[in-house]
């Protein structure tokens, strides 16, 4: 009995469930002759400098969500397959489904799995339709606009991941229509609604033109959820070096509030070093941010309404591909207002269908700034001293 208990303590319910789900999904896709791709992933995240006590200043809703005491390490397992099924013989309709099964453990303990959402998301569930010249995508999908790295002011469905900027977008319930027009013009219109609140609607349009060595777009959005109208431009091209400029103006429909701007300008270049050295630098301006650290809106960051606090940022990224299997990247985000920075070096090794990544997020700079908040000053209390991580992914 002890041996059996030990086996179960090692395998645990989550892993058995994951394996069964994988088996069932593969069997189903085989029977349906559908195409399947995706991955299984395990992550280990080590966090230093948090807790163990919950900061008193935390709002109640954050306290409810956060584990107590704060964990020192987190394990995160994901199974994210995608199934694509052509409907009909002419290939004009296809169905794409991407469920994601995930389990999180804090300090080796399972989190409470109370709701289906705790371990299962449907990230993509959409139909692609060819309707004459137009292509329609209807259902839960990712809409991902903009040329800049990390920050995309013209992305009307934006998500910002400062340290995991290649992460897949969350699915949104939307319809997107793409219409190619003569002379390299193209038009995309999209409308989305919330998961549970169906008044959280957004409507957006993007008109693009490829000309003079550049890809240029103008964007318009009506964000009913946030009571905003927005306009933006996005240009990416090459003039010896690569360049991009993205800017957007957001105008609250309530005229008591002033419009505000966000903009990114960047350049990149690559060198013939080993299998390639890529370097990019960019500047980000956010008028809603604050130049003085005492004015930072930590509460808005806690509530997920903003990803950064200051007005001016610089970003430097360098990736060296040592060979076809090994590459190293360092990405640094520098807060020009308070002189703190977050450096994120990571190493990636690809071996066949396996990819292993290991890295760290290292705050740098004087205490009291955005990336190095002082414990007494920091109302959120959730910024760690150091985070390092490793993950292994197996591609189906």
């Amino acid at each position, binding site marked *: 009995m002890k041996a059996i208990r030990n086996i179960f303590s090692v395998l645990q319910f989550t892993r058995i469930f994951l394996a069964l789900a994988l088996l069932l999904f593969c069997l189903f896709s085989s029977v349906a002759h559908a195409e399947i791709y995706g991955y299984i992933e395990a992550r280990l995240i080590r966090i230093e400098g948090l807790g163990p006590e919950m900061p008193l200043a935390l709002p109640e809703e954050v306290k409810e969500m956060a584990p107590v005491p704060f964990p020192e390490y987190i394990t995160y397992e994901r199974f994210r397959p995608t199934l694509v099924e052509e409907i009909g013989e002419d290939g004009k309709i296809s169905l794409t489904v991407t469920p994601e099964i995930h389990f999180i453990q804090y300090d080796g303990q399972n989190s409470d799995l109370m709701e289906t959402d705790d371990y299962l998301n449907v990230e993509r569930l959409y139909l692609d339709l060819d309707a004459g010249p137009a292509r329609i995508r209807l259902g839960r999908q990712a809409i991902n606009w903009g040329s800049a790295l990390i920050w995309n002011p013209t992305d009307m469905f934006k998500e910002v991941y400062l340290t995991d900027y290649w992460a897949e977008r969350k699915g949104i319930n939307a319809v997107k229509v793409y219409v190619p027009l003569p002379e390299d013009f193209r038009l995309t219109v999209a409308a989305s609604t919330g998961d549970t609140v169906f008044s959280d609607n957004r409507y957006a349009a993007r008109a693009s033109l490829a000309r003079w060595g550049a890809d240029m777009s103008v964007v318009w959005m009506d964000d009913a959820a946030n009571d905003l109208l927005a306009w933006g431009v996005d240009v990416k091209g090459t003039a010896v070096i690569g360049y991009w400029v993205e800017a957007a103006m957001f105008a609250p429909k309530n005229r008591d509030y002033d419009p505000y701007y966000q903009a990114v300008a960047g350049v990149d270049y690559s060198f013939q070093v080993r299998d390639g050295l890529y370097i990019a630098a960019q500047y980000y301006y956010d008028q809603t941010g604050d130049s003085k650290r005492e004015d930072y809106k930590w509460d808005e960051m806690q509530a997920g309404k903003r990803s950064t606090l200051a007005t001016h940022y610089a970003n430097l990224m360098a990736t060296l591909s040592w060979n*076809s299997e090994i590459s190293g990247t360092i990405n640094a985000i520098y807060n020009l207002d308070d002189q703190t920075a977050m450096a994120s070096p990571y190493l990636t090794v690809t071996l066949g269908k396996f990819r292993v990544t290991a890295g760290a997020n290292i705050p740098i700079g004087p205490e009291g700034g955005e990336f190095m908040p002082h414990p007494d000053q920091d109302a959120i209390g959730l910024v760690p001293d150091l985070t390092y991580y490793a993950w292994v992914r197996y591609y189906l």
Partner: protein
Amino acid sequence: MKKAMIAISALTIGLVCQAAFGQTEEGITGRQILEKIDANEVTETQYMEIEMVMDRGGKRKPKTSDLKIWVKGKDNAAIEVTSGPDKGTRFLRLGDDLWIASREAEKPMKISGHMLRQGFLDSDWSYDDTTNNKPLAERFEAKIVGEEVKDGKKCWVMELKANDPDETYALQKLWVDQATYLPVYQELMALSGMLLKTMSYEDLKQIDGRWTPTRMTMKDALKNKTQTTIVVKDLKLDEEIDPKIISLEFVENVR
């Protein structure tokens, strides 16, 4: 996603050569040979299915990807990776502009021009190797520097010097089969004369009435023991291509 694109340049130089098997011409100049190679690129469209085998040397297992390639005119091309770790990734070239779209990124990205020199799908081919399809006679001054038997074929040995010093391989040495006017072997060098890559053309087959090499191997002289071989599995010439393929729609809607 870093690297990509297949040998449209080399493919069209070597592949779509209309092999006019005939007598060796006496007194022919280097320029005339280049013009004969260029003149063979007479197709308006090409569709190819190829296998790309990337041999990383040592005991490491070669990486293989299958690709579909559509070419229209001299500088419009679309590529889709149909197997391997990059399956689903698409590339589009319209004139001098390049785009890439992958299933992971879920949006098309315009590739900066300097990336043309970087490798494609971890192979020894660069973007530029694969997409630069301008006529040789326009890009290079050529002279015949000798004759050699290469791979059993009597060849002219030619030296090519780029008219534009920004050409990726400003100096080239080219072995051309005197019977077919098909390239047999190629050395690609920097302006300094440093050898960067070599390319061999093998396995001639008659496809749609044209003799074409169906196996091309590129070696990067700056890397140890790596090489990338392209094997042509299918080739269709002058067949109509769906206009949606050679357009931005191709990379806007990756499934």
